[in-house]
């Protein structure tokens, strides 16, 4: 169970997130919605500790995530796998090595420096790729793939981390509709089959409606909605997206992460 209490982060005068409380049970698929700049990325990055909080606490199954340092912090990051809008793969390395980045914390230092991963680790990476229909491409360079394929490689990388949580930061915002569907289906399947908790930032409301059992709305760094998809009525939507975005049926797809 992920418990977030009074979480806040400021950048100088800018408040990215303030006093956020959220509890996520194991196996939930939570969509986080909000307009650009609302603080969605900040929330996920805080959970993975890519960003340090300025206030509040994050507790996972009794473990105080915000207090972790060094090796313990790295162990936590392995358990809270990130997926990024821009994929964040290593362009010049092949697909399988990119997936093996998810195993770095489990493999000896010298082996990682020499890119000499043990067969069992490599097999695990291939299996993860196979689940995402990408095993055929294992030996290709990552930058030769389409956006949707790259995102599936990134999901495979997250899978081999053997995580407890998947934190997906607008995973489909840079993808065409078909690729977007494949990626969302993959996340949904992982959620279903492996029982992994998924927190997924989304711009498009209809995507949230299709895939998420629960939706969290953030506006200007504050939580303004938390409930089942069915609870999303016109008024709530206006509260999340602000007045001018009256009918955000298909909210903008362009904003960067």
């Amino acid at each position, binding site marked *: 169970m992920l418990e977030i209490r009074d979480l806040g982060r400021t950048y100088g005068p800018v408040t990215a997130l303030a006093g956020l409380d959220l509890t996520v049970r194991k196996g939930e698929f939570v969509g986080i919605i909000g307009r650009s700049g609302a603080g969605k990325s900040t929330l996920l990055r805080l959970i*993975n500790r*890519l960003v340090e909080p300025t206030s509040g606490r994050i507790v996972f199954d009794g473990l105080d995530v915000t207090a972790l340092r060094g*090796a313990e912090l*790295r*162990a*936590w*990051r*392995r*358990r809270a*796998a*990130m997926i*990024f809008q*821009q*994929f*964040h*793969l*290593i*362009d*010049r*390395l092949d697909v399988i*090595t990119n997936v093996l*980045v*998810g195993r*770095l*914390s489990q493999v000896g*230092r010298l082996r*990682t*420096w020499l*890119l000499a991963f043990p067969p069992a680790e490599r097999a695990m990476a291939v299996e993860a790729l196979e689940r995402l229909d990408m095993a055929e491409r294992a030996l290709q*360079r990552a930058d030769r793939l389409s956006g949707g394929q790259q995102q599936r490689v*990134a999901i495979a*990388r997250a899978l081999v*981390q053997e995580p407890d949580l998947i934190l997906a930061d607008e995973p489909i915002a840079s993808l065409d509709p078909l690729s977007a569907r494949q990626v969302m289906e993959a996340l949904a399947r992982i959620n279903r089959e492996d029982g992994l908790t998924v927190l997924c930032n989304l711009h498009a409301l209809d995507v949230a409606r299709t895939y998420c059992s629960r939706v969290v709305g953030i506006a200007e760094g504050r939580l303004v909605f938390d409930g089942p998809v069915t609870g999303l009525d016109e008024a709530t939507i206006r509260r999340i997206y602000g007045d001018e975005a009256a009918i955000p049926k298909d909210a903008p797809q362009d904003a960067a992460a």
Partner: protein
Amino acid sequence: MSSDAVRLFETRRAEQIAARRRQTALFGVVFLAAFAVSVVVGEVSLERLATGLPRFFAYIERTLPTLSLATLGADLGRWFWNFEGWLRLLFDTILIAFVATTLGVIGGFLLSFAAAKNLVANPWIHHGARRFLELMRTVPELVFALFFVFAFGLGPMAGVLAIALHTLGVLGKLFAEINENVTAKSLDGVVAAGASFDQVIRFGVVPQVLPGFVSYTLLRFEINVRSASVIGFVGAGGIGQELMFVINQFIYTDISAILLMLIVTVALIDLGCEKLRHRLIGQESLK
């Protein structure tokens, strides 16, 4: 109203042009002053130039051997009378450059990450590493060699260490600048997966910067072969000592023979490095 705007624009433009002119004039004055002072301090005169250049060409001419077609073999044999000895010295020279470049690259590689401010948050570390690299870069290898000949004795070891240290400075600084261009994006993906600092370097940085590193290294190797050829002037090994001897003793044809061998060697290495550079950078297996 529009003519006002035009007038404003025109005066602004005139001001800008005037400022530019003033800058150019100032630069010109400084340049001329520097030139005048340099000519005096550098003991340059047209007369010296006029007498010096013909003497230089005469000197070059004197170094050329007399070759005739009838006795070409014998003439060449006489010109390169010490071919094997010089070849051995040349070989040592290349080895000095090879070992020194390798050591310098290893040192520069390691320090370049400490000297990159996007990778190391602690300002003491990256400033310290930067200043150290700059110092090593500023001190010419020959100065290091003078010290090292004293400490390590005459011979190639002093030369190797001297060139290695200078190379470490030059390459470390260039490598660090490449590292600083690495995007946060490529780091985040690896950090978020729970990698340790050195793994972040290995996966988030190295693949991206390696082509640049290799390119600079190969360029530097060629320069180091040339440096290794003169490091012997202060007794630090290689062909330099022999070269200085024949120049100082005015053994003219030996000068041209040694220089010719040196030039061919450097040109071949230049060519080889260029080929290798293009092949490695074009190749995807470079990890």
